[in-house]
């Protein structure tokens, strides 16, 4: 979505992006971003938690108002009120997406190879001395 923010900004709009993945936003580069530490699919909060949604949106409007240069990323202090393990499970689709289904064997193979490489690697110098 940082790409669309750039498209709109270049067309003359002042844009504000809210994102859970500042890592991605910072790589591509978006004009103004509010980063939130929320699970995917819940960019502005929990369903029916109006005070939380309003707080995030008002923070986003503040970033829109106060950002002075392109690439501004402000990190929200809002805390997701559900334990991490539960939240991580909650947002994911019941069935993995078609891409994840297709890629999983490939990733498991990669992970196996990495483990094997670590096992087979000669011990590092410090230990040998």
């Amino acid at each position, binding site marked *: 979505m940082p790409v669309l923010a750039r498209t709109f*900004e270049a067309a003359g709009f002042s844009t504000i*992006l809210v994102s859970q993945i500042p890592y991605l936003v910072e790589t591509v580069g978006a004009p103004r971003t509010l980063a939130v530490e929320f699970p995917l699919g819940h960019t502005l909060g929990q369903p029916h938690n109006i005070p939380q949604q309003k707080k995030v949106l008002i923070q986003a409007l503040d970033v829109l108002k106060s950002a002075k240069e392109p690439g501004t990323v402000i990190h929200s202090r809002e805390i997701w009120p559900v334990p991490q393990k539960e939240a991580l499970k909650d947002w994911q689709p019941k069935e993995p997406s078609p891409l994840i289904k297709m890629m999983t064997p490939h990733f498991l193979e990669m992970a196996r190879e990495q483990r094997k490489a670590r096992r087979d690697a000669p011990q590092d110098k410090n230990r040998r001395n």
Partner: protein
Amino acid sequence: MKVDSFKYIPRLLGAFYQNIDRKPIRPIPWSPLKLPLTRCKFGLVTSGGLFYKEEEPPFDLEREKREPTWGDPTFRTIPTGISQEELGVSNLHINTKDVMADMNILLPLQRFNEFVAEGRIGGLASFAYSFMGYQGHPPNAAEWHNTYGPKVAQKLKAEGVNCILLTPS
């Protein structure tokens, strides 16, 4: 506090995100805010895969199932006075139960209508727009940038919008 991008992302998917070769695109465009927010008209754009059930079809998830490295690049038009029951969600990358219960977590139509009523912002466009966030693998947002993004920009411009809030899923 710095937001941890991977706190709620499973390890496999996190490795996947980090392995994608994304090149920084510079310079970053910049259109300074020219008016106070109380005079700005807002457009809302999400990539949640939302659609207005009575008027438009869902995103093409059938093709994505057949071709997992492809994602639908088109957009849907959503009247900003829509009720929750009229809204559909087509997205294979999230559990859609919570957004089906309250659209405001991805498309804050009710919150923004309240902001207008409170005088916090100048106005809200009559239509919001939704894309579907998954743009294939490796991700390719070229159609967003070249075709569908400019179409939405044109529509928002025609409504006199100054500011856009973007909410990915």
